[in-house]
C-alpha cells in the first residue's frame, strides 16, 4: 500500500498533535481510501446509467429483442441485415453529409464571428450574450422557430422570395429531398456558430496584445499577423472545438426529430433518429441498438484523436 508515502508527503510541517489526530481519523484521512471513497457516488451513477447501458446495448444488438421482451442471441445478424437495408445505407450517407457539411461551415463562420467580436469593443457584453443565444437556448424550442421558417405555407423566406419576384410559389423546404437536407444543415450551422465563435474568441484573447504590436512594428501586414500570430495561437482550440462538434453532430437527434422526423422518404434520417424510429416506434429495440452502435467506431475514432491531442498538449 502507498499509505506511508502518502502520509509523509502531506505531514511535513504539521505538529505531532495533528499527526496523531490524522492517524485516528483513518479511512477518511488516508489519501488512497479517501480518494476512492470520494469517487463512489459519481462513479456509481455513471456505472448504472452509462457503463451498464453501454454493455447492455451491445448485448441487445446481438439479439432479436423487442420492447418488453428480451430476445434470443442471433450473433451479428442485426449488423449484417442492416447493411442490406436501403434506409440504413441512406441514413449512413445522410449522417456523414450532415456532419461533414455543417462542421466546416460552423468552424469558418465561428472563426469569423470570433474575429469580429474580438474587435467590437462597444456593447461587447451585450453583443456577446446576443450571439450566443442559438447555442444556449433549448435546441428543440429554437428549432421550432426554424420549423416555421421552413413551413410550406407560412415561411417568411418564401414570402420574401415571392415579393422580390424570385419565386412564383412557396418553397417546400422540408418536403423536397435536397432542400430538406440543406435546410436541416442550415439550422444546425446556425446553432453551432456561437460555440466555435466563443471558444475561438477565448483563444484570441489569450494572445497578448504586445505580440501583435511587435509584429506590426516589424512591418508585418494584417494577413501576416493573422497567419503567424493569430493562427498559431488558436490552432489548438479550433481543433478541439472541431472534434467536439463532429462528435456532437454525428450523434445529433433533436434538430432532425423536430424538423423532419427523418423525412421526406428517409432523406434526412441520421443514426439517432433512425435508431429511435426502429428501436422505439417500431419496437425492434435489438435492431435499434445495432443502428446506434454503428455510430460507435466513428465516435470512438474522434474521441481518441481528441484524447491524444490533449495528452500531447499536457
Amino acid at each position, binding site marked *: 500500500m502507498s499509505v506511508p508515502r502518502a502520509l509523509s508527503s502531506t505531514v511535513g510541517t504539521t505538529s505531532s498533535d495533528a499527526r496523531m489526530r490524522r492517524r485516528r481519523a483513518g479511512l477518511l484521512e488516508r489519501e488512497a481510501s479517501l480518494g476512492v471513497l470520494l469517487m463512489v457516488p459519481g462513479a456509481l451513477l455513471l456505472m448504472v446509467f452509462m457503463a451498464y447501458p453501454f454493455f447492455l446495448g451491445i448485448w441487445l444488438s446481438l439479439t432479436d429483442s423487442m420492447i418488453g421482451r428480451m430476445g434470443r442471441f442471433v450473433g451479428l445478424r442485426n449488423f449484417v441485415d442492416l447493411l442490406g437495408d436501403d434506409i440504413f445505407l441512406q441514413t449512413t450517407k445522410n449522417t456523414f453529409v450532415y456532419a461533414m457539411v455543417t462542421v466546416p461551415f460552423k468552424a469558418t463562420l465561428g472563426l469569423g464571428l470570433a474575429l469580429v467580436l474580438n*474587435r467590437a469593443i462597444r456593447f461587447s457584453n451585450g453583443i456577446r450574450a446576443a*450571439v450566443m443565444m442559438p447555442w444556449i437556448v433549448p435546441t428543440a424550442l429554437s428549432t421550432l422557430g426554424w420549423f416555421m421558417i421552413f413551413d410550406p405555407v407560412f415561411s417568411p423566406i418564401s414570402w420574401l422570395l415571392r415579393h422580390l419576384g424570385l419565386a412564383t410559389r412557396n418553397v417546400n423546404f422540408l418536403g423536397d429531398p435536397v432542400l430538406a437536407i440543406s435546410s436541416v444543415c442550415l439550422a444546425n450551422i446556425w446553432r453551432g456558430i456561437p460555440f466555435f465563435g466563443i471558444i475561438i474568441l477565448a483563444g484570441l484573447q489569450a494572445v497578448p496584445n504586445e505580440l501583435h504590436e511587435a509584429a506590426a512594428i516589424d512591418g508585418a501586414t494584417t494577413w501576416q499577423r493573422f497567419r503567424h500570430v493569430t493562427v498559431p495561437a488558436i490552432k489548438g482550440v479550433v481543433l478541439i472545438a472541431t472534434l467536439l462538434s463532429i462528435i456532437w453532430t454525428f450523434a445529433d437527434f433533436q434538430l432532425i426529430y423536430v424538423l423532419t422526423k427523418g423525412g421526406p422518404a428517409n432523406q434526412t434520417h441520421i443514426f439517432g433518429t433512425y435508431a*429511435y424510429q426502429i428501436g422505439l416506434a417500431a419496437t425492434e429495440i435489438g435492431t435499434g441498438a445495432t443502428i446506434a452502435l454503428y455510430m460507435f467506431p466513428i465516435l470512438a475514432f474522434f474521441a481518441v484523436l481528441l484524447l491524444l491531442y490533449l495528452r500531447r498538449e499536457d
Partner: protein
Amino acid sequence: MVGSGRLGRQVLSLYLPLAAYLLFLLFPFYWMSIVSLKPTNDLFEMQYNPFWIQHLTLENYRYLFENTAFPEWVKNTLIVSTVSTALSLFCSVLIGYALARLRFPGSNFLGVGIFLAYLVPPTLLFLPLAHVIARLNLYNTYWALILTYPTQLIPFASWLLMGYFRSIPKEIEESAMADGCSRLQTLVRIILPLSVPGLLSAGIFSFTLCWNEFLYALIFMSSGAMKTIAVGTVSDLIKADTLFWGSLMASAVLGSVPIAILYSFFVKHYVSGLTAGAVKG
C-alpha cells in the same frame, strides 16, 4: 491606422459583418417572438407584412397557461433541472477534489474514464437505457431524469472543478490541516468557498444542459402531465390544424427566456464553463 479611410474600413470589416451575424443568429428568435404576439388570423392575411406585428395580442400566452399543460411542464422542468444539477455538483465536487488532490490507485485511469464519459452522446445509450429505466420502474417519474442527467453533467463538471481545485495553492490547505481540520473539513471550509466561481460555472452549465435536454425526456417522460417544456411543446402543441403557430411559438419563447436570462447574468461564468476544457490558462 489613422486616416480618412478608417471609418469606411471599419464599417466594411467590422460593423457590416457584425450586423450580418446578428441578423442571421437572432432572426429565428425575432420571428418566434412576433408570431407569438400576433392573432392567428393575421398569419393568413396575405396582404400583411409577416415581418411586423399588425395587431398585438397576448392571447397565445393566455391560451398556453389556461388550455395546455404548460404550467405543469414548467414545474417538471424546474424540479428535474434543480435536483439533477444539485446531485451532479455534489458528485462532481467529490470527484474533482479526489482527482485534483489525492493520489489513489487507479486515479489516472478514472480521470481518463471521466473524460471519455463526457464524449458519450445520449443517442448511443438511449435504447438500452430505456430498458434500464423500465426495469427500475422509473418511467414517468422525476427520478428517470434526475438519475440519468448526471451522467451527462458529472464528467464535465468534475473536469471543470478539478481545474479550479488545482489552481488553489496547496499551502492554504496544508495550514488548515495543521490547525486540526480533517481533509473533508478542509474541502468544505477552505476549498469550496474559494471555488465559488467554479461552482457557479459548473452549476449554470449543468442547469442549462438539464433544461435543454430532449431525447431522454422525450422517451422517459411520455405522459402528458410529466413532460418537460421542450418535449411538451414539440409533442403536444403541434396539432393537425394550422391554428397552433401562436401558442407553439409562445411556448418556445417562454421555454427559452429563463435560460437566456440566467445566461446574460452569468455570461462570464458560462463562457468559462464552456471553454474550461478547451482553453488552458
